[in-house]
């Protein structure tokens, strides 16, 4: 009898936790991933990231290093209509060689103790992506989302989708809903906590601004709405309106900590009329940026689609709470230092194979005002124009671009503020052969003479020459050309033409050999000052590339390619000469010729949950400069990544 009871008890004890465990896992999704990156270059730089923080010295960036990260994702379904999630992710930056770094910084310099490099190198786990999502029983409300979001519900002109490395660092409260049985009218509203870094003058919401004595960042928010109206299946109208709103405390308020008048007396001790403590602290608006776009996506016929977008942006700043970074920071500043209003318009049409011959046509007209301001717009990993541009990665309507925290093989982005022009594209698809031909003409709403780039318009210090994104450096110690954010010049009378051809042919050999090629020609001309021809810039960019790839197995794909660049730039850099009274007397500008050749090897191996990639390139550059010494580069660099998701 005792034995039976013991067995029964044992069965009960074992079975109860088993049942509970099963119930628990039903409500959970656990995902994990491990990512490793190897980065090498034939130089003496140590780190895990080709381009790190351009402002704060970091301890991650460098060209030679290998490191890993781990992520654990948790999604819990608390009930039928309530979901919650979070991620635990290790900090990326620790080198495999770091071994026992503890996170401590006990010493002023790196040593072998394991206590000298701090948390960035100790691979600590950080909580990320915390959210709760509820579908409440409220008519017209689909869901309420509280917590982390990538902000992809708006658009690149207003509040852009957050870049990969910050993907869910943004937090806010969001509601999505609809009206009408067929969802004719949909809406989304969101309130987003502003990051203390990058959204605002001085790339901050007050911290570090010389005019803000006591930064007050905890009440800074952006507000966004999106309304979609779909009256029929031939078109959708989307209105997105956003407001970025940076508050600072009223430092004259006697209740404010650090108040100018804590005793309600002036410098002489005299009482200030109207000043009294009431234990509430007033606020001032440091910076406002409101951006709205109205977009119509129309498909009147099966072969024709039209997309029209109009936008308005408004910027207001309080110079008492925002120091003039154009003046104080050598023109490196993410906004025009003035109150601005501006517009943007973009019209697109697509004729999809109208002759039933595999030929499609696309056209785009764009006109972006010279004062367009979008401080919270997309910073990278998006593209608002079809053109290949001068930088092939993409064009975005903000000065707040983020060509940083990237590796050498990642795309670059340029600002298209002030661009006015059009693009025509012809796409050809004949099965094994596809091609796309582009022609773009750009003039610039930023063309002007004697523009105030000393106190109002940021020129980002380096405004001349094609940008070399292969060998970029933030401080421009290598003469890498124009900063991609530089859209304002003191004197500009510029137009640009771009022609590009992309083609690909798949040979029916084995698994299919793919031959791809690209040819690009850009003619960039800027008369600069209209008072002399000695400064006229004439830049020609010729680029050609070809590659061949082959999928050896279902898992393995290898590509070998090469790219050749020839840049001829007359009067690329120099100075405008002025007489004793400031009158323009000529220019002292110099020509530059740049040759680049790049050979690349790419390997991808995807096996079940494993993703492995390898990229190797040899880059040779000769920069022939008229006055300064010529420059030669022989760069060999590689990047390998391995990811496993489970």
């Amino acid at each position, binding site marked *: 009898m005792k034995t039976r009871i013991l067995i029964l008890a044992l069965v009960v004890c074992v079975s109860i936790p088993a049942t509970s465990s099963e119930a628990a896992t039903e409500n959970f999704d656990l995902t994990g991933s491990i990512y490793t990156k190897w980065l090498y270059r034939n130089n003496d730089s140590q780190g895990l990231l080709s381009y790190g923080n351009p402002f704060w010295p970091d301890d991650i960036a460098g060209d030679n290093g290998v490191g890993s990260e781990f992520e654990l994702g948790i999604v819990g379904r608390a009930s039928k209509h309530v979901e919650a999630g979070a991620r635990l992710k290790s900090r990326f930056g620790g080198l495999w060689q770091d071994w026992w770094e503890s996170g401590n910084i006990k010493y002023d310099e790196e040593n072998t103790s394991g206590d000298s490099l701090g948390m960035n190198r100790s691979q600590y786990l950080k909580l990320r992506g915390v959210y709760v999502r509820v579908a*409440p029983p*409220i*008519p*017209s*409300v689909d869901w*309420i989302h*509280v917590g982390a979001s990538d902000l992809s519900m708006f658009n690149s002109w207003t509040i852009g989708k957050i870049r990969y490395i910050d993907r869910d660092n943004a937090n*806010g*409260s969001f*509601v999505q809903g609809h009206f009408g049985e067929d969802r004719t009218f949909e809406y989304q*509203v969101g*309130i*987003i*906590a502003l990051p203390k870094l990058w959204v605002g003058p001085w790339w901050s919401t007050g911290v570090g601004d010389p005019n803000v*004595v*006591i930064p007050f960042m905890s*009440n*800074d*928010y952006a*507000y966004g709405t999106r309304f979609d109206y779909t009256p029929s299946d031939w078109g959708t109208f989307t209105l997105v309106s956003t407001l970025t*709103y940076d*508050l600072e405390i*009223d430092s*004259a*308020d*006697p*209740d*404010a*900590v*650090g*108040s*100018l*008048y*804590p*005793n309600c007396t*002036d*410098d*002489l*001790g*005299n009482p*200030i009329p*109207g*000043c009294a403590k*009431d234990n*509430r602290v*007033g*606020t*001032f608006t440091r910076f406002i940026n409101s951006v709205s776009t109205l977009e119509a996506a129309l498909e009147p016929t099966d072969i024709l689609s039209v997309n029209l977008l109009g936008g308005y942006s408004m910027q207001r700043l309080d110079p*008492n709470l925002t120091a003039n970074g154009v003046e104080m920071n050598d023109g490196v500043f993410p906004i025009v230092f003035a109150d601005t209003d501006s517009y943007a318009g973009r019209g697109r049409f697509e004729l999809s194979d109208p002759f039933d011959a595999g030929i499609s046509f696309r056209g785009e007209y764009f006109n972006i005002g010279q004062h367009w301001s979008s401080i919270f717009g997309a910073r990278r990993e998006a593209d608002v124009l079809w053109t290949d541009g001068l930088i092939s990665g993409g064009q975005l309507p903000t000065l707040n671009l983020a060509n940083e925290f990237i590796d050498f093989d990642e795309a670059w982005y340029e600002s298209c503020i002030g661009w006015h022009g059009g693009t025509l594209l012809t796409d050809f698809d004949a099965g094994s052969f596809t091609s796309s031909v582009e022609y773009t003409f750009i003039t610039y709403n930023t063309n002007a003479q004697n523009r105030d780039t000393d106190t109002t318009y940021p020129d980002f210090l380096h405004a001349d020459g094609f940008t070399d994104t292969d060998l970029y450096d933030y401080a421009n110690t290598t003469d890498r050309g124009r900063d991609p954010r530089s859209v304002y010049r003191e004197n500009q009378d510029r137009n640009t033409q771009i022609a590009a051809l992309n083609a690909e042919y798949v040979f029916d050999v084995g698994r299919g050999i793919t031959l791809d090629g690209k040819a690009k020609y850009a003619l960039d001309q800027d008369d600069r000052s209209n008072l002399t021809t000695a400064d006229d810039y004439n830049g020609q960019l010729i680029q050609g590339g070809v590659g061949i790839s082959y999928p050896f197995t279902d898992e393995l794909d290898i590509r070998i390619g090469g790219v050749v660049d020839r840049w001829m730039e007359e009067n690329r850099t120099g100075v405008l000469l002025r007489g004793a009274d400031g009158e323009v007397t000529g220019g002292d500008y110099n020509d530059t010729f740049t040759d680049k050749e790049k050979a690349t090897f790419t390997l991808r191996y995807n096996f079940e949950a494993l993703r492995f990639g390898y990229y190797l390139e040899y880059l040779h550059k000769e920069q022939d400069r008229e006055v300064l010494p010529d420059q030669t580069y022989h760069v060999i660099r590689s990047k390998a990544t391995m990811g496993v998701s489970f």
Partner: protein
Amino acid sequence: MRYTTLFCMISCLGCGIEPALFSTTDNAPLPTLPSVQPNVLAGYVTTMPGAEVHLIGPSGQPVSDSVNADEQGGYTFELPGNTDFSGLRVVAQKGTQQYWGLAPVIPAQDSVLNGIRTVPMSLVPGMEDLSPTSTSIAFIVLQRAQGTPLAADTLLSASASAGEALSVRPEVIQFHGMLKKILAATDLEADGIQPFLTEWTGAPGTSVVNAEFLKDGVNYLDGATLSTTSTAFDEALEAAAVSLSFETCEAEDWIRVVFMVNLSEALQDGNCDPLNPYLWTKPADGKQVYFTGGIHVDTPRCSADVTTNCLDDATADMAHIALGAFEPNVLPMYDDGTHGDPVAGDGIWTRSFVMPWIPMEDQEGVSGVRIGYKYTYGQAGGLWGDAEEWPGNSRLLEVADFDGDGMVFRYDYFGDEATNKDKKNLLSFSNGGCGTNKWPEEASDNCHSDVWENGIGFVDLCGSAEAPPVPTVAPVTCGEAAQMMENE
């Protein structure tokens, strides 16, 4: 409708819209007022173009950097417009020649909206152009006032009287003659020893004459031999001063109390151990030193039975509030060369108060006004945290002017818990500490008392030569005393 309302409530509450909504209830913003404009003291020393001109405070210390007179002998001093100045004198010297003059009382500007205010030396009779005459008047008036700064009206009448007496009153005529003979022994072009001591205040028993200057003898008595001492000159000055009849006012019952605190690193505490001033507060931009305190409960208070050597309730309350009533980060101290701070930016912060005074110095068994106080290093209006020298406890000061200079001058090191901190005092047993700072009547060899002024003649017991600069303040004037009485 219900659902819509519910939705609006849910979507708005706690989600970040509140700051924008709350800001609609803000008060109308106050104007940002300008800083007060300076006062400029302007005068001439026409016989000494290019002379080095000094502006000396009532304590005998410079209150401003010296300037050089221009080609016409003009000179100006820019003084902070938020500070009252009285008892100033101007000393011009070139070669070994030296002229003195009395500067007018310079009140602080009355509005921050005022422009720069020029105060001419000519407001004081005889001081428009420094000369032997202005020097005699200055010496006589200073001697007569015995180092106490004079109120504006008194200064004007005294200077006018002294000026008139130069030609009519025998004692004054005699003194003026001696002075001219001493000045005649100086040389505009020669380097050498100055005849008079610029730090002279007129205090009783002191001489303005530089003994070094007379070392080789000067025939200021028109005698057969050269005089090598100032005795006769001093006696003549005393006689000239006594012959003048003007009323000097002593602000009885009130005294100037000056606090100076050194917020620097590399100092030593009362035990001569390294002092960390940032033990309880962190250095940061936008922070500064504040003073707060109040009348200590051990201060003698008046009652039906006690009517002398005590504070009445109204005076005690007023003084308590004036000291800050132990509200932190409200009363700023100054390290900008204003409000009595002698040296801008030296890490030594200054604040002075006019405090009630019980003259206990010569009375056995009488206690003075007793003050508890402490310093904070924080933001204006901030709380105690990350600001105070230490949690709880305070410093002690008994308002006692044993050196008779009309001021009580206390000098402290920020964060030093081994000097006059009242409780949990860290002065070691070997240094006489017992964990508590006692009032004098309770102290013993084994339980110290550190409650009195220490600024003048400050001695660093750890051997450092460091001494605080003398604050550029004057003893309380009668005008200030009258103002305090009104405030009561």
